[in-house]
Every structure is written in structure tokens, then in C-alpha cells.
């Protein structure tokens, strides 16, 4: 019986790095799930992602978020990355998950991100993000990036494959 939920790769940073790469992702699964836990080297950095090393403006997202005092929604269109998490603290780790559906299919790629970034008081954030990558190419690589600073040492990212077969 094939495994339904299977680890593809885990990367734990031994030193700070500007990006984390998952390459040569096979097409043997139905969906992908990424779990990211770590700290940025500067406060208030967003954890982003890029698919197939494609930096063209094919990405967009819509998010709903709360910051502990108010709730709002926001969107970006025609940008060159997707978004997983807004990490508010370089002291406490944040976590994000990204479910990437039908990644090997020939339609545009939709993904759902969950963000959890608390810092014991004002300024934490929690959000849900729907991302769209307007490409029909199967996903074979995922690059994790930030909009400022680096991923701190100890940041861990694990990529799982979900199989419906």
C-alpha cells in the first residue's frame, strides 16, 4: 500500500541563510505540504516562496489576518513570490504551513498558507493566505525566501508528499 503522507526532504539550517531550496521534486504525489519553523534575523520579515525558480510576476495572494487588536484582509497581484508567513520576531520562532494542491497538474497552482507568529504581547500575527501561481508547469522546485534579512540558524523546513493513490 503506498504511503499517503510521506516526507520528501527536511532541511535544518546550520547557519543563517537567505534561502532554502527543495529541488528535484518528483511528480509521484498528489499534493505537497511544507512545514516551516524558524526565525528571521530581523523582526517583521515575511517568509516567501518561489516555484520552479520562476521570478516572473505570476504570483498573487489574498490574506486575512489579525494582529491582536484588529483584523483585516489584504491582497497583492502580479508579484514575483508567494507568501507563507509574516514572522514578527527574531527572538521567538514563527511557524508556517503551505499546502500546495495538484502541484504536478497542468492547471494554475493554488496553495493555502497558515501563519502563526506570536511574541507574548502586542504585535503578534495570525493569518490565512490563499496563493495563486499562474503557471501550468508541474512544480519541481520550491525556494523559500524572505523580504528582509535571513533565515536564522536552526530554521527547519520539511516537505511532505500527499498521495491519493
Amino acid at each position, binding site marked *: 500500500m503506498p*504511503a*499517503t*503522507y*510521506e*516526507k520528501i526532504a*527536511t532541511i535544518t539550517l546550520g547557519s543563517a541563510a537567505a534561502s532554502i531550496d527543495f529541488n528535484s521534486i518528483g511528480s509521484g504525489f498528489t499534493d505537497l505540504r511544507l*512545514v516551516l*519553523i524558524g526565525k528571521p534575523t530581523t523582526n517583521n520579515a515575511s517568509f516567501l516562496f518561489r516555484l520552479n525558480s520562476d521570478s516572473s510576476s505570476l504570483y498573487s495572494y489574498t490574506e*486575512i*489576518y*489579525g*494582529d*491582536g*487588536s*484588529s*483584523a*483585516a484582509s489584504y491582497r497583492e497581484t502580479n508579484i514575483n513570490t508567494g507568501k507563507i508567513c509574516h514572522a514578527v520576531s527574531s527572538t*521567538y*520562532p*514563527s*511557524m508556517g*504551513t503551505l499546502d500546495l494542491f495538484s502541484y504536478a497538474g497542468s492547471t494554475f497552482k493554488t496553495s493555502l498558507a*497558515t*501563519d*502563526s*507568529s*506570536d*511574541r*507574548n*504581547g*502586542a504585535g*503578534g*500575527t*495570525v*493569518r*490565512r493566505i490563499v496563493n495563486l501561481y499562474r503557471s501550468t508547469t508541474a512544480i519541481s522546485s520550491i525556494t523559500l525566501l524572505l523580504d528582509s534579512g535571513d533565515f536564522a540558524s*536552526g530554521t*527547519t523546513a*520539511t516537505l*511532505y508528499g500527499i498521495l491519493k493513490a
Partner: protein
Amino acid sequence: MPTTYTLISSNVLTSSQASVTFSAIPADYTDLVIRASIRSDRGAANEVLYVSFNGTGGTSHSYTVLQTNSGSPQSYNGANTDGIAVNVNASTTTSDTFTSFEQYIPSYTVSQSKPTSIFSTTENNAATPNWIATVAGLWRNNSAITSVVLTPLLGSNWVTGSSFYLYGISNA
């Protein structure tokens, strides 16, 4: 090949219970997931579920909540608390309706503070609160998580039929 997603423990209540504890959690996994179906006997529409790691009585938890019950979404936070809070269903809502609850706890054995994510939903076909909530939680402790306590903060008990499941996720 090791199993990635494994049931560690479950507790399906056959009588009301003041809290549910998962104890002696082994360090054999990478992440933990709690899935639960919850209702409290508090005489109101909502209950506050408190999730506490490695026992209660401390001030090392905190949380940021985003929630709505059909009105405008709202957000609030708690600092230096004894647990991570989220609204769940209580006894004045439609009978037999339970909150669906999921909590993800990554890297629960790693020596660092522990972030966690909660998603909780209730629908009861009524105007009384039907909370849908997501929570960013934090436990500021470097110890491995070995127990989790789920307590109804405002009421007395989780009612019969509430169910709690703890899973381990392994990246080995």
C-alpha cells in the same frame, strides 16, 4: 519505511470530564497534531478552551487570535498566560453540535520556544455564536513537550461525546 502520521493517544469521553490530558508524550516524532471534537457544559453559548503544555500554573504561554461569528472579524491577544485560548462550543447552543478543533505543534522536542497553530470551527444553525477562529500560540520554554492539558476555562466539564486525538508526525 517509518509511518509519517501515527496516532499516539485518544480519549473519547463516555462521561463528563473536567479536563483532558495527554501525558508521557514520547520524543519519537518531529511534530504533534491534536484533533478534537469539543463541547462544554458551561451554561452559555461559548467556552474558552485553554491548551497548556507540560502542566498548568505558569505564565509562559501567549496567543494572538483571529476570529468571527458572522460579524466583522476581530483580533485580540493574551500575554503571560497559563494556556493558549480559543473559543469553543458550550451548552446553550444547538444540541449535539461540537467544535471541530485542530492544533499543529512543530518541533516539539527542539530546545527553543514552541510556536503552535490552532484552527477551530463551530456551526450550529443558530444566531448564537458560531465561532471560526485561528490562533497563533507560543510557549516560551525550551523543554520538550511531554504533556498537553485541554481545559474548559469558564465552565466545568467537557461533555460526553467530546473526543480528543493526539498524533505524531515523523520526518525520519
